[in-house]
């Protein structure tokens, strides 16, 4: 990257608070104050409910360094998603000992199996599982709402504290503010010279789910203010979009940006989906949460009828004026696997070049990937030159 990460003070503070990973300064401070931490796996867990119960929601992931497998594959065989194996290895390594609870959903087969491993081999004081609807219709909303109500009741029982609709409404407000601020950052990245690199934006998204959201919101406000005050700009020849599996190793994205390109938008659960829309504050809070989580975000890879996901990718690419898409899929992801054919077709129809990369979660961008990205960028350069007006 042209601009080193520490040039943004608010981001540096986010990184300080969320380091070391995972038992960070923020987590230690929270626990030292007598707080409890609840881990969650996938985007169908409403953090607002955990927050309203007075607990810290923490997304269970890997981070910027690859995790050496030395035991996880005895429980989760090698023909499985390396993100799941990474999380289990971190548990085996004792890195997630600080968790008081764990909540997952049936979003994916492998998430479910990881949850079962925790339940069987390392049961936490609070554990829960929700249904992640595959459809996006009223029946799905009602089914999910029913699960959310049960989840809220069980959590209240665990806490010996009945949290009210007003408590949930307050949490919704906090999280809505976070989404709004993150969305503002995404809007700034539409500029010809975006103020932040993709790797930096990824660090911001990660921080959102690893620290108290109120503090995150304060830092986001500072970050946006800092960007405006300093007039920060990144000048790169090519604008890229990253789609596919969730990335948590920002070094992978930084490797793309070490070339003459900047990632201006993504289509990841950890990325723009986390910054998308608002929970409707006019509805009863639980219903509002159910509607937002089922219908309020862009269609994702796990939705059965994922036609809209492909359209969403195409529309985002146009909005952010990207030159090309890097689709990076963690191997053994069934959902991404089934989208590949139509994704390629649809992007071809839209005349958006796409580089498809299969990778292992958390691993650094190796030489092979770098060569492929360089070749892709060269191709993008060639396309750009071909469309430039001829001088004279």
């Amino acid at each position, binding site marked *: 990257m042209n601009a080193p990460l520490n040039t943004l003070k608010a981001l540096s503070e986010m990184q300080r608070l969320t380091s070391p990973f995972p038992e960070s300064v923020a987590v230690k401070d929270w626990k030292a104050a007598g707080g409890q931490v609840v881990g969650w796996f996938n985007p169908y867990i409403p953090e607002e409910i955990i927050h309203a119960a007075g607990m810290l929601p923490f997304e269970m992931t890997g981070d910027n360094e690859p995790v050496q497998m030395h035991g996880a594959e005895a429980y989760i065989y090698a023909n499985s998603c390396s993100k799941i194996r990474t999380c289990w290895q971190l548990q085996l390594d004792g890195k997630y000992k600080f968790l008081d609870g764990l909540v997952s959903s049936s979003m994916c087969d492998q998430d479910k199996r990881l949850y079962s491993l925790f339940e069987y081999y390392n049961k936490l004081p609070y554990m829960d599982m929700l249904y992640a609807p595959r459809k996006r219709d009223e029946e799905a909303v009602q*089914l999910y709402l029913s699960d959310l109500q049960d989840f809220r009741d069980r959590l209240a029982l665990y806490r010996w504290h009945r949290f009210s609709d007003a408590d949930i409404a307050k949490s919704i407000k906090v999280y809505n503010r976070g989404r709004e601020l993150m969305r503002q950052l995404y809007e700034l990245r539409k500029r010809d010279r975006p103020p932040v690199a993709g790797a930096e934006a990824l660090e911001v998204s990660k921080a959102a789910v690893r620290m108290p959201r109120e503090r995150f919101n304060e830092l986001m406000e500072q970050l946006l203010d800092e960007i405006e005050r300093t007039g920060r700009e990144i000048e790169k020849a090519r604008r890229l979009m990253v789609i596919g599996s969730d990335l948590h190793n920002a070094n992978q994205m930084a490797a793309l940006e070490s070339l003459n390109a900047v990632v201006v938008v993504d289509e990841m659960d950890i990325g723009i989906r986390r910054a998308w829309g608002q929970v409707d504050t006019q509805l009863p809070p639980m219903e509002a949460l159910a509607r937002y989580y089922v219908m309020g975000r862009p269609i994702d890879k796990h939705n059965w009828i994922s036609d809209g996901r492909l359209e969403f990718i195409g529309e985002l690419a146009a909005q952010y004026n990207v030159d090309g898409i890097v689709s990076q899929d963690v191997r053994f992801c069934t959902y991404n696997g089934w*989208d590949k054919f139509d994704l390629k077709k649809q992007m071809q129809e839209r005349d958006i070049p796409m580089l498809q990369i299969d990778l292992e979660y958390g691993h650094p961008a190796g030489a092979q990937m770098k060569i492929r990205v360089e070749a892709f960028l060269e191709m993008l350069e060639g396309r750009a030159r071909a469309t430039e007006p001829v001088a004279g």
Partner: protein
Amino acid sequence: MSTDNLIAADELAKQIKMAVEGIKKKPGLMKSTAASMELVHKYVERIVTAKDEGKWVATHGTQQPLEIYEAMGVRGLFIEFWGVISDAVKLESVPAALNISASTGTPGEVCSFFRNMDGLLHAGKWPKTDFMLYATSSCDNVKAYHTLGRRYGIPSFGMERPYLPYTPKALEHWKNEHKRLIAFLEEKTGTKLDYDRLKETVRLSYRLTELSLEIDRLARHVPCPLSAECFGGVLLALRLMPGTQEAVDFLTELRDEMQERVDNGIGAVEDERFRVIWSCFTPFWDPTLLDFMQKKYGAVSVGEVLANWRGEANWILDPDDPLGNLAYRTQLAPGNCQYASSQDWASNVVDQARRLKADGAIFNNNWGCKQASGLGRLVGDELMRHCKVPSVTLNVDVIDSTFVSRAEIEGQLDNFFEMIEGSKAYQERKVAA
């Protein structure tokens, strides 16, 4: 890419018919073997002739209420079975279909049942299909039904099953999903469901359940009367043709033959040394393995988790509420533990191991199955903890015979049975017996 090796439905039907005749002449097999192949032939023939007979064909996945199909003149085409039977009849077909699937960009890491369909659809060799029908269970691959349906212009409908189907609210939702399926089929076929006909197909289906439980009870006998050639019979009947008289007739014949063998002290092999359960699925990629195990090790396959009912499986709550019964059945039905916690799966396997007096369990870790890849260790630990039954994990592809060599499998089985024989738990069981 060549499509010469792909097997089409009409050829499949012909080959199975020939196999039935061959089986009838082959000595030493259980009598029901021919009947089981006749059931398979009937099933494939129904698909081949559907159009001529004014019927509809639905490509579908697991946990479908086939009784509704049957009552509406819709013939099911179960994609998993199509992969299995294609592999059994023409070994080259599945690898060829998988190659075609790969050429379209579908990664080789997803389930080969679905990749086989993908390849055959792409090559125009999948049987003519009017709809794609599926449910949340069994796995994430069900997304392929809509995806491929969209690609090839086949309408699709998915039933959303709650993860925990045990609460009244969840059950009501699931029952409503059955109603939505009926509405979809009524719209597409232009035919109203006859609920009296549905009650009849549900009644036949429940009879099938009762028969399969009787067969399970007979399989507990030592020596086990069920031989390798008929081992898959219950699964075939339950998964392919519930709600039909043909399936009931077949399981009745199988039950009677097993009873006769029990009465006469006839086992699958003369010297039954090991009783084996399959804790994930049976070796569909190589159906000859069961017979090989019987002959080489005296190892008899006594059960498999995908054919295991929970408890007494009394899923008829109200004879006048066929949809409620079908919805409830899902809680008890074989294979529904696929879409549940690993502990739930393991408890099914443990129950089966105890009931069937298993000495060992074989866990097939199917390359494309993300349900299985995070499951084997936990199931193995539960089996050992509760009944001291050891497991072996075979890394395979469910229907691709080229994925792993037979020699490698045999080597693992040699070690496994040697290990069981030397174990204290096995010795104690033998003394106790």
